């Protein structure tokens, strides 16, 4: 029998595998390892096994932060789906060249630096900023409205920065949907609404689920948006983790929080693979 030549496979997949093992897998195990250690007096990591960090997470302060983070991430995800699906549907039904223009428009925010974008938001929304000026001058409000450093502005910022991640996967699965399936459904007696429920929605579900994953997971862990628009006063998992590794220097607690995020992410990805089989994704 001919001996298999493994060289091409190694050459193609090898570098990335080594890269990922060195810079993702090993650090991840290290984080899991640290999460079971203790914090020294000077903020160092003491290699003394303990469950303390995980027990701290059960403390109501952290519990509240976690549940609030989940809520904001869920809100962001729902808002992105609600806004993104109709938009994705609309552009998927445009001629190809038009759709490409819309996609470019959606991508433009990525061309600007996140920090710059968020800073400009602060300027726009601050007490003496253009938005408040407009509201007062047009008589909609009497006194300046406080926008900055609120949960609402954080949520708004999250939706804005996450929307493209929701639109793109949904667009691609709606665009792939065979038009004759919709005609077949209409032909067999289904009105537009029924066709949407029975054909369009189930067949674009892989795209919707990708959107959920792509929006929910980063929204849970993101710290730039809450840090800037929330002024660091509004606490989420993301900026707490950042603080544990930074200012506060409680690495084991930060690691435990990270592990919690990894667990939530893992659960979602598990659900994703359960609900969308490969064949379904290819057929649509």
């Amino acid at each position, binding site marked *: 029998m001919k001996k298999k030549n493994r060289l091409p496979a190694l050459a193609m997949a090898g570098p990335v595998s080594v890269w990922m093992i060195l810079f993702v897998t090993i650090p991840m195990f290290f984080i899991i390892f640290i999460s079971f250690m203790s914090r020294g007096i000077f903020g160092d990591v003491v290699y003394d096994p303990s469950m303390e960090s995980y027990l701290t997470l059960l403390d109501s302060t952290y519990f509240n932060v976690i549940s609030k983070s989940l809520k904001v991430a869920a809100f962001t995800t729902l808002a992105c789906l609600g806004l993104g699906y109709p938009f994705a549907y609309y552009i998927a039904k445009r001629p190809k060249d038009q759709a490409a223009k819309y996609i470019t428009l959606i991508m433009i925010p990525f061309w600007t630096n996140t920090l710059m974008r968020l800073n400009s938001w602060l300027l726009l929304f601050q007490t003496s900023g253009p938005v408040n000026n407009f509201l007062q001058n047009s008589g909609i409000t009497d006194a300046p409205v406080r926008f900055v450093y609120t949960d609402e502005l954080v949520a708004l910022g999250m939706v804005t920065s996450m929307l493209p991640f929701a639109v793109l996967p949904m667009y691609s699965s709606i665009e792939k949907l*065979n038009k*004759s*399936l919709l*005609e*077949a*459904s*209409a*032909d*067999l*007696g*289904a*009105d537009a609404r*029924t066709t949407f429920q*029975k*054909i369009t929605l*189930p*067949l674009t579900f892989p795209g919707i689920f990708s959107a959920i994953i792509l929006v929910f997971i980063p929204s849970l862990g993101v710290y730039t948006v809450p840090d800037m628009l929330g002024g660091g006063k509004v606490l989420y998992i993301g900026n707490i983790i950042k603080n544990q590794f930074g200012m506060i220097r409680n690495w084991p607690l930060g690691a435990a929080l990270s592990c919690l995020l990894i667990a939530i992410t893992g659960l979602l990805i598990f659900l994703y693979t359960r609900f969308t089989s490969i*064949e*379904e994704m290819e*057929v*649509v």
Partner: protein
Amino acid sequence: MSDSIVSLQGVFKKFGRNTVVRDMNLEILEGEFLTLLGPSGCGKTTTLRMIAGFEETSAGTITVQGESVENKEPYQRDVNTVFQNYALFPHMTVFNNVAYGLTIRKVPKAEIASRVADMIDLVQLKGYEDRKPDELSGGQKQRVAIARALINNPKVLLLDEPLGALDLKLRKQMQVELKRLQKRLGITFVYVTHDQEEALTMSDRIAVMREGVVDQLGTPSDIYDYPRTRFVAGFIGESNLFEGTVEQIQERVMTVRTEAGSLLVQGEGFAVDERIHVSIRPEYVEFAKEPVEGFDIQGRIKDFIYMGTVVKTAVDLKSGQEIKYSRFEQDQSVQSGDIVYLSWKPSRAVAIKRGTEVEERYEEEK
């Protein structure tokens, strides 16, 4: 005579500046198998889609059972479609695909189960109820598509090149099955195809379309034996075509002078000096070593083409034209290079008026 079930009156379809269907008038009779036949781009699929409701007419009316369907959405029309690429719902089992029409209409579950079972029986797919479309062969998918369309008991079933994706053997088998099914159910079938053999095999009547116009409507034998236009003569089966001028007419037999020589053809309604086309099928062409009276078509045998059931002989005429005739067996009395005189029974040839041709019509309009 049966009544008309679908009627198209003065139907036009334009896509932008492009007229795809032009002043179409067609009465589809109850219970018949009518085929829209033509090359791609002739407007046959567009016509079908207008009947189904997927395309709006630009002008004219379509009625189904005497009622205009102009303001009816596809889901409100009593017609069902079998799509070109089946269009089965990939996320549903065979059972749910077939049941779809009934589920939408909120038919009771028990009734759905029994009607779906009957339908699956009818298309011989018993045992495949729980499969997904992916797990079926092309022929099986086709059966599911037919069952799914028939379960609503449509008055008219529209079929858009349903056998196009199948291999030849399966296609032949499905042609026979479809025809039997149609006879048994008594449903009107409107069938779109570009395959003339398929059309001849299955149809009660054929509408041969070209550039958005019906060139000829008739039974398969009408269309094969008496093509009304040069296009129909060339598109349905094989034809040898001549163009010439009528020199004299004697008891319906005309002598026609062509570039290849003079020939005889039987026909009515023609005048001396009129330019006409003459079509003769390869199986009716006779050959001899001596000239035949009335004919003056001489040629040199080029080669013999073995086709399985027949042998075709290609003959080069002095006009440069190539003529084919076919026999069940190769005639050993002639060889390639031999000079032969071609002739036929005048009643076997068809005289075609000029000006019945679509392009010629347009030229006249201009």
